[in-house]
């Protein structure tokens, strides 16, 4: 398992005397990791460019197909208490009962082997073709979340990223059930402009056989009463060419490169439209790999880099719950 997210230049903790933490409780370890995180630059300044990894090849494209081309709303999730993979069937039954109690509607819940949940409508409307339509899907995910796993004790199961597709009222009911049952906490996972730039750079850097979408950026200018959006679409090959020109370290993306990449886009835009995009707020990035919106919505397009995208999202989710 090659660790995509392994921060190579994590601030080295060994310089400080941590020895007295040998007997420390998990709680103190948590606090310690929060301290570490707060005291250094928040994100490791370099990451690997998503590669088609070994793990990726093992994944059956059919199995993950339902994850692609759908808009997912992201949530971060604190570790689940006393969760057990062997009880998924039971959970499904309980969750179903809970949903029925909440809604009194004919819905069925399926909890899949790999722990995704589907709500299937069973006769919402009389029309026949509506039968069995999937109303809502949600799945839990943790890709290379090692930094969190380190400090989580055995009573907890760590699935820091939750993705949901469907009506938010359903997310609310299911989330509530999870919160009550496993004493966890769901928070919406927003992606700030800084991380969007990273996504833009990393996804542009991915090698693609063919591009399915243009590379597009959306900036928002805060002004009332209606905010003004500026969209900037680039041919994906042009974006790749620009990236190649700023990219130096093979296989990696560094903070400088991300900044440079975005600065180039800004200056290009300024040359033509005399607008300083750096003064606005980046709200959406779409590439052929995936597209992400700042309010925590993501759509993954490319099967090949699925793991890479999820790993980065897991990292963001972990950062939020740390």
């Amino acid at each position, binding site marked *: 398992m090659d660790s995509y997210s392994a921060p190579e230049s994590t601030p080295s903790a060994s310089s400080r005397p941590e020895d007295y933490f040998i007997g420390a409780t998990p709680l103190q370890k948590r606090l310690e990791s929060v*301290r570490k995180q707060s005291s250094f630059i928040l994100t490791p300044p370099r990451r690997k460019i998503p590669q088609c990894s070994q793990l990726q090849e093992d994944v059956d494209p059919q199995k993950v197909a339902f994850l692609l081309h759908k808009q997912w709303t992201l949530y971060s999730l604190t570790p689940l*208490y006393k*969760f057990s993979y062997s009880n998924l069937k039971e959970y499904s039954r309980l969750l179903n009962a809970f949903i029925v109690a909440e809604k009194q509607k004919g819905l069925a819940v399926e909890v899949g082997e790999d722990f995704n949940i589907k709500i299937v409508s069973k006769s919402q409307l009389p029309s026949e073709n509506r039968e069995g339509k999937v109303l809502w899907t949600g799945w839990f995910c943790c890709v290379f979340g090692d930094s969190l796993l380190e400090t989580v004790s055995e009573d907890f199961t760590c699935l820091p990223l939750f993705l949901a597709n469907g009506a938010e009222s359903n997310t609310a009911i299911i*989330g509530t059930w999870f919160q009550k049952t496993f004493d966890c*906490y769901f*928070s919406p996972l*927003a992606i700030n402009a800084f991380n969007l730039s990273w996504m833009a750079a990393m996804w542009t850097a991915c090698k693609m056989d063919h591009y399915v979408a243009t590379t597009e950026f959306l900036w928002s200018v*805060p002004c009332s009463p209606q905010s003004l959006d500026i969209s900037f679409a680039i041919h994906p090959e042009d974006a790749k060419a620009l990236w190649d020109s700023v990219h130096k370290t093979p296989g990696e993306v560094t903070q400088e490169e991300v900044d440079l990449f975005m600065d180039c886009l800004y200056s290009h835009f300024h040359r033509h439209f005399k607008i300083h995009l750096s003064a606005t707020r980046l709200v959406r990035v779409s590439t052929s790999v995936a597209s992400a919106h700042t309010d925590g919505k993501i759509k993954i397009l490319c099967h090949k880099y699925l793991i890479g995208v999820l790993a980065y999202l897991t990292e963001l989710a972990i950062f939020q719950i740390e």
Partner: protein
Amino acid sequence: MSPQKRVKNVQAQNRTSQGSSSFQTTLSAWKVKQDPSNSKNISKHGQNNPVGDYEHADDQAEEDALQMAVGYFEKGPIKASQNKDKTLEKHLKTVENVAWKNGLASEEIDILLNIALSGKFGNAVNTRILKCMIPATVISEDSVVKAVSWLCVGKCSGSTKVLFYRWLVAMFDFIDRKEQINLLYGFFFASLQDDALCPYVCHLLYLLTKKENVKPFRVRKLLDLQAKMGMQPHLQALLSLYKFFAPALISVSLPVRKKIYFKNSENLWKTALLAVKQRNRGPSPEPLKLMLGPANVRPLKRKWNSLSVIPVLNSSSYTKECGKKEMSLSDCLNRSGSFPLEQLQSFPQLLQNIHCLELPSQMGSVLNNSLLLHYINCVRDEPVLLRFYYWLSQTLQEECIWYKVNNYEHGKEFTNFLDTIIRAECFLQEGFYSCEAFLYKSLPLWDGLCCRSQFLQLVSWIPFSSFSEVKPLLFDHLAQLFFTSTIYFKCSVLQSLKELLQNWLLWLSMDIHMKPVTNSPLETTLGGSMNSVSKLIHYVGWLSTTAMRLESNNTFLLHFILDFYEKVCDIYINYNLPLVVLFPPGIFYSALLSLDTSILNQLCFIMHRYRKNLTAAKKNELVQKTKSEFNFSSKTYQEFNHYLTSMVGCLWTSKPFGKGIYIDPEILEKTGVAEYKNSLNVVHHPSFLSYAVSFLLQESPEERTVNVSSIRGKKWSWYLDYLFSQGLQGLKLFIRSSVHHSSIPRAEGINCNNQY
């Protein structure tokens, strides 16, 4: 304080008064209302809103009318009265109006429900009464039980019964307890026979059924009914619930998917139900606004409809047991042998059941329960603490209003939440790690205004830890705000740092005596801990010195600084910890030369305590003789003696600029002050001068000119007594301990114990 704050307070008051007005229908509120002074109050609050006045007056009248109406119904119809119908109609209208507007108190519901089902009035009246049985907040279980007992008497018609069951289903959630009602399970079940009632009774049973209610004979009865009446959705619902609880008893296969089991019996009361929910939620939150950016991501709880930030206390053991495969879930749900939290009422109960307590399903709920806080405090079960940690960390982050633009409308809620946390911390006398982590993240973004008091209190509850580790995360950010904010902010920060110091000291003094030092979480040695505390004190010293310069030696600020040092000077004796840290010169001399007597008095007291502590330390060292690592360096003693010499030189011996503060005599001559030597003693010191004058005037009120220099010899001692009688206790203690009296006080009558 600032006018801004005052305005806020007034608003807050208004809000609470408005809030309470929505609960006016409760009986207690009535009684208060009848007090004339109180009603005046109410109209005062209504001033900014002239309409409000009328509304209040209306409410008042309405309630009187309601009372009359209830009284009328209670008495029953008066046969002879001619206006019978009119009066009845009027009273019914009153009840209906109030019920739909504000809901009825549980006492009123009790009375009216009784009337509706007892058949005193006609069917139409009963129906109307039943339809408006809308609670203000809750319905008491007793009322329901009483009402059900009327059903047995057979005084009410079938339609009234139906309506009653529909009402019961709709209001089920607002009944305060359900144990008694559950005891009537058999009665309700028997009512299934009645075809008209059957659907509604089914629905009620569906809500009421517990595992122990599922009995073979009931299953048989239900199956019989189904055979007789066909596949009725309501029967199926009940059967499937039975099957869920007791799969073994029901072999019939039931269709899994079903659209809607029950006809919506709430529809009569739909709007009313919403209103009750709103009321129960407390003062209604501001209407939700449409949010655009991600910066406005709304905390989930508001989207997810939970009523408050802190989860409701619910014991639930099934998550624990689900790990064991052999146990079926329904078994877990009805597990016996453990003590359910809902029954936990008293501390002795907690003690008796502490070994078999069911923990809440959501650990966050302990925050509202002092008994469970006790439990949390003594339990050293890591998962319990971690669950609480995760919950509190995330909730703080989600709720924190300055993380999100435009989220300030929820400020009050966040403030209340912080208050709850702080109450819990005070109760436990212990800070939460989550709060510390939250401070790390949020302090750099804090504006220094929002929730200031709460935020600074959180600072004072930071659990003891290594100062040098916490400093860059917390104190450096706090310092930036400190230096750029008003003097009041500076004082509040110093106040909270004083409390922080106190909390750390208490914790350490407990920790040392409770368990071996090696167990202490963050520092291996006592020396390390002391080092951390001393760094905190030095840090505050640095803050104070700079603040004094920035605020040009403000007396108010100096009071807060000296308050801090009042804690510092007594560490050795009060907390039995081997630490004495003196104040920096910038503070000492500012206090010594202050124009304010109380400052000087406080300084004297602190010097006196320092002396006591150092003497005690010296004595212990001599006794132990062993060279421990906590012997104070001679530097501390020297420093103290230096301060002492200065003080005695100024206040007592009138040799101010010799040993302590040294100023070149040539420079002093250049100032042209003739008698500078006297000018800082207890008589001439600017802060004492007024005392000297009043003393002399008291001595000889006739004197037209006073000569303060005449205070010498015997008069000097009288003068001192006079000063002491004016409440300058610090000065008294200082002089008693640091100055040896001889017959000629103004001579070198001191022995300031220079040789420690």
